[in-house]
């Protein structure tokens, strides 16, 4: 596929994506107003925001493998927005916890973060997201330099992993869904590891070849 050829097409695509990413939130708002979130709407809202945080993390992680497999390089131009949406939903998820779950009882919250492994892990994931969100602007990328920026943003692998662990540890008994997320994440991280390994082998082979050619030159 050719993809958006012009800057204008890309801008239009971004606008569409921006609205699409708001759909989960709008559906929650609609459901809350329509009383369609079941008997425990607060739990529903909180869980749905958590699920969408994880969804957006995984979608963001899909961009670069998908680009490589498809050759659609313009996909990369959408990645920042997806990552920021992951942060946006994480923030709402955290607010739903602080407010709807704990009612800003800071003592209980502190105790929860220290005592409940699933909260500890969720909170760690959120804290790790903060520097990524803070360095998402073009100016920050320039200030950090591409390489350092990239190194920093690799922590998203850890964040997504913590997110899955958080989910795994909070379910009462049925781990089907966390297992599904774990498998997807394993796939997304595994394919990267595989490509990196292949790249390394290619480079060492290339270096060997280089040496040999050097030696062979008179």
């Amino acid at each position, binding site marked *: 596929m050719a993809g958006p050829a012009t800057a204008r097409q890309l801008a239009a695509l971004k606008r569409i994506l921006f609205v699409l990413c708001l759909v989960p939130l709008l559906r929650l708002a609609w459901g809350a*107003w329509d009383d369609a979130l079941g008997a*425990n709407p607060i739990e529903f809202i909180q869980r749905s925001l958590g699920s969408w945080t994880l969804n957006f993390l995984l979608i963001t992680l899909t961009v670069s493998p998908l680009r490589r497999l498809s050759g659609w390089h313009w996909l990369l131009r959408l990645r920042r927005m997806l990552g920021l949406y992951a942060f946006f939903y994480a923030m709402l998820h955290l607010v739903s916890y602080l407010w709807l779950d704990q009612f800003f009882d800071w003592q209980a919250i502190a105790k*929860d973060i220290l005592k409940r492994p699933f909260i500890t892990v969720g909170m760690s994931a959120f804290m790790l997201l903060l520097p990524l969100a803070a360095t998402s602007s073009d100016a920050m990328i320039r200030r950090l330099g591409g390489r350092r920026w990239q190194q920093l943003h690799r922590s998203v692998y850890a964040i997504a992993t913590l997110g899955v662990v958080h989910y795994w540890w909070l379910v009462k008994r049925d781990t089907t869904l966390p297992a599904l997320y774990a498998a997807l994440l394993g796939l997304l991280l595994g394919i990267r590891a595989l490509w990196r390994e292949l790249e390394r082998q290619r480079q060492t082979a290339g270096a060997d070849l280089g040496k040999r050619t050097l030696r062979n030159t008179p």
Partner: protein
Amino acid sequence: MLIQLPADTVPSEITPRAVFDKRREFLKGLAGTALAAALPKSACAGEKFSATLKSPWSTTETPTPYKSVTTYNNFYEFGTEKTDPAQLAQRMKTRPWQISIEGLVKHQKSFAIDDLIKMAPLEERIYRMRCVEGWSMVIPWLGLPLATLLKHVEPQGATKYVEFISAADPKTMPGVASAVLDWPYLEGLRLDEAMHPLTILAVGLYGEVLPNQNGAPLRLVVPWKYGFKGAKSIVKIRLTDREPWTAWMKAGPREYGFYSNVNPAVDHPRWSQATERRIGEFAKRRTLPFNGYAEQVAGLYTGMDLQKFF
């Protein structure tokens, strides 16, 4: 030491309609719009029981709406989502239905459900129900004291415990194909807990025949314990001298104990039990020892370390 609580409700405990409405307002506020929408009418309507008795054991708190009680259920035989039972339990056939009483009793016997219902006049018991997950409801059950049935079959002297075994029919219960729990679901009580007047076998809800998703045709209700102690769709009651090894103890012995009395001072290893969300309310409430039934039942546990026997 246990705090003795009044037998019934203090006025502040009653959910005022205003609070309920406020929450709706709040949620509408969240949506940021003021249009009105019609709620769908409840789909399940049971047959009404006639001539039932009121009970002094009932709370005067406002019952949780029928729709919530019948659409937000943990009944893993039909799936682990709370909405699964309401959607899938209709396939279960609750007539004919036999309940066999076995083990250390003088009269081993099998009852047809309709005979069991006629054993004593049905009483309405409006009880608080606290789920181990941290939410609660107020439910107007209809049923008979378990003691009535047990006295009828006469426990032998050696009996110490009562075991409750639920149906596990893969043809009508899609959840039993999954290994989330060891089927059939098994629960248990100590004999004195089983004989306590608060302990009932429920056959109805809101004056009507118990909907399938709530454990029809017959379920256990023990209001001072976490909800999962209330075995649903019971097919067998066994009296024994050994402490039953319940389905949830098998699933997580560190997380679920035999007693499972509601206790705000003993947290689930993964979450706090200090507070609960009453379904339909916005703010959370403090959880009460023995779910507010301490005055009636704390005596059953004198001298026991409730941190250890959780």
